[in-house]
């Protein structure tokens, strides 16, 4: 006898994406840019090269959910949804910030601050997520994504306790109701350790080493080909899928073999275990798939990647796991303009 209802299979993967500077090439550092971005049409908005292709490939197996969490105001929902549809991106949840409410209530810290808003939204979403789903998160270096995503991962895994969280939110000067909602969401979330990777798109070209205090789970990336390579090594994507991401970047954004092979070597130099990735890509390049024709001729590609690998001599060892000191790293969670700027990094 058939059961009364058949529940859909729980998603194997949850992909959480930020929008501005992670998925979209957004400029809002000045008031003029902010205004232009606010009134842009969907067709004028430009995605970061490879981002749409990567999402499509991640979603291709049908065993995942896409949760988009953006600091953009709720009033932009229409145009953002239209842009995602234009790019062929299918999402399950799109959460936007209620900045009009913040403005009306005079909560000016909350207008620019992301910690209270995003951490609560992530935890509330996690509470609705099946326990067995693992998570891969995508953010950028313009705001506090590395900090917030890492804290989220460690909170649900129980590595950061309530006392430590209280100190962090106190130092971050969250509003009282934000703090209460945060703790409520944490109480509603089951303990699990699902976050596999946190990718930080280096929109501002922050030196990748600036994120080393967040441990090897956080992978800063110059482009989405790099994310695809890491996901291939992690077994999330297949080699043909990675090549399809690369093909889109070559065809639509002017990427070339040098940029792709340099990106590959950049990850190797940071100790990411990609030595087997090159052979998987080589095998995939031999398949007669029409989309990959953008990446011919094959021998040149194989040679470029092999040379970048050989040029390093002994591959560096993977970065060590570290205990994250969130209070010390709180600087990463503050709005950009109030942060200390390292003169060497400029």
């Amino acid at each position, binding site marked *: 006898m058939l059961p009364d209802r058949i529940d859909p299979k729980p998603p194997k993967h949850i992909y959480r994406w930020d929008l501005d500077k992670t998925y979209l090439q957004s400029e809002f550092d000045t008031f003029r840019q902010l205004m232009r971005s606010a009134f842009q049409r969907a067709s004028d908005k430009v995605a970061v090269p490879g981002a749409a292709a990567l999402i499509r490939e991640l979603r291709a197996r049908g065993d995942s959910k896409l949760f988009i969490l953006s600091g953009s105001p709720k009033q932009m929902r229409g145009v953002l949804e239209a842009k995602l549809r234009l790019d062929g991106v299918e999402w399950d949840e799109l959460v936007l910030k209620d900045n009009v409410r913040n403005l009306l209530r005079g909560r000016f810290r909350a207008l620019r601050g992301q910690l209270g808003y995003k951490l609560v939204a992530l935890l509330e979403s996690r509470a609705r997520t099946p326990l067995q789903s693992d998570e891969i998160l995508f953010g950028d270096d313009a705001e506090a994504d590395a900090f917030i995503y890492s804290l989220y991962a460690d909170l649900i895994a129980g590595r950061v306790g309530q006392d430590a969280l209280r100190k962090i939110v106190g130092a971050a000067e969250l509003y009282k109701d934000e703090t209460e909602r945060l703790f409520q969401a944490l109480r509603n979330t089951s303990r699990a350790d699902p976050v596999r990777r946190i990718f930080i798109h*280096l929109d501002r070209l922050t030196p990748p080493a600036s994120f080393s205090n967040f441990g090897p789970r956080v992978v800063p990336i110059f482009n989405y080909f790099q994310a695809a390579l890491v996901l291939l090594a992690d077994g999330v994507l297949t080699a043909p899928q990675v090549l399809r991401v690369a093909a889109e970047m070559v065809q639509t954004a*002017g*990427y070339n073999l040098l940029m792709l092979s340099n990106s590959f070597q*950049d990850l190797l130099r940071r100790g990411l275990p990609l030595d087997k990735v090159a052979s998987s890509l080589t095998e995939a390049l031999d398949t007669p798939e029409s989309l990959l024709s*953008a*990446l011919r001729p094959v021998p040149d590609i194989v040679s470029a990647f092999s040379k970048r690998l050989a*040029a390093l*001599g002994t591959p560096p060892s993977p970065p060590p796991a570290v205990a994250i000191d969130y209070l010390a790293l709180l600087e990463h969670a503050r709005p950009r303009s109030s942060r200390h700027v390292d003169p060497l990094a400029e």
Partner: protein
Amino acid sequence: MVCGYADLMGGSITIAFDVMGSDHGPMEVVRGAAHLSLEAPHIHALLVGRRGAIDEALAQVRHNGERISVHHAPDFVEMGEKPMEGLSAKPMSSIAVAARLVAEGEADALVAPGNTGAAILAAAQSFKLIPGVRRAALAAVYPTRARHGTKLDPFSLILDVGATLEATPEDLVTFAVMGSTYARIISRNPKPSVALLSNGTEPNKGPANVVEAHRRLNGMKELQFIGNVEGVGIPLGSADVVVCDGFVGNVCLKMLEGVHETVVELARYAYRSKLTWRVGLAMLSSGIRQVQAVTDWQQYGGAPVLGFDRVLIKAHGRSRARAIANAGKVAAKAVAADLPRAIAEGLRS
């Protein structure tokens, strides 16, 4: 859509940087290449040297990882080492490896801020001389009173300044053609004036090789040869390109550097000595800064080594990041204009 190999390379120019051996260690060279990766999308930097040191330096600076790659070289020739001995003992030195990578086509040009002799020798071992060139020449830019070319550069070019100690008349003629071609392409000077350095402006003044070179250059209508200039004509900028042998050129260059340092020291002395002089200098300070800015050698990047079939820019050992980045831009410009081919054509005509 099917892309060919050239499309896949996207018209990029790769510059190999010898990261080791400069006075400031790897940091400044890496910073220079990092600047370049942010400023010049068509230029890729291939950093050659100890991978650990390069990655440590890269970790501290903003850069675009898509435009930088690293080639590990375990050794390097130090500033004080004898070039021949250093290169023989260290075949995997950064300068030797970088020169080989350029020769093999992995990079289009080489920027070397380390040991000058080792850079030229490594190039001689890996590159070929352009047909018609017997010896390569090291060319240096120096500030002048007169402005030159369409960009009104306050610089002239002098060569050779040390690659070849003694030059035959043929060598001097070759240097004249190479210097003229370089000034035409890099300084955008369509018809650069060329002069021989001598102890008098008359054609028969100077050693035999200079007198003979003068005679031959006089017959070359494609060059704008203006005759001899004396030493005083160098800082005045009497010619866009001044030709001499490496011994004389090196002495002149070091003297110009010494005069510059002496003037700076005298100004410091004046500043310390009298309040009225200090006030006077303070009033002149913005003008002095402007003069410093237009005559700053770091703006120009480096000295080209001319005569090889590959582009080699010798950056100053004291180069800071900006000078290294500018050396990379000059190298890329020379590659884009195919300087070696232009020199070969100049020598044929």
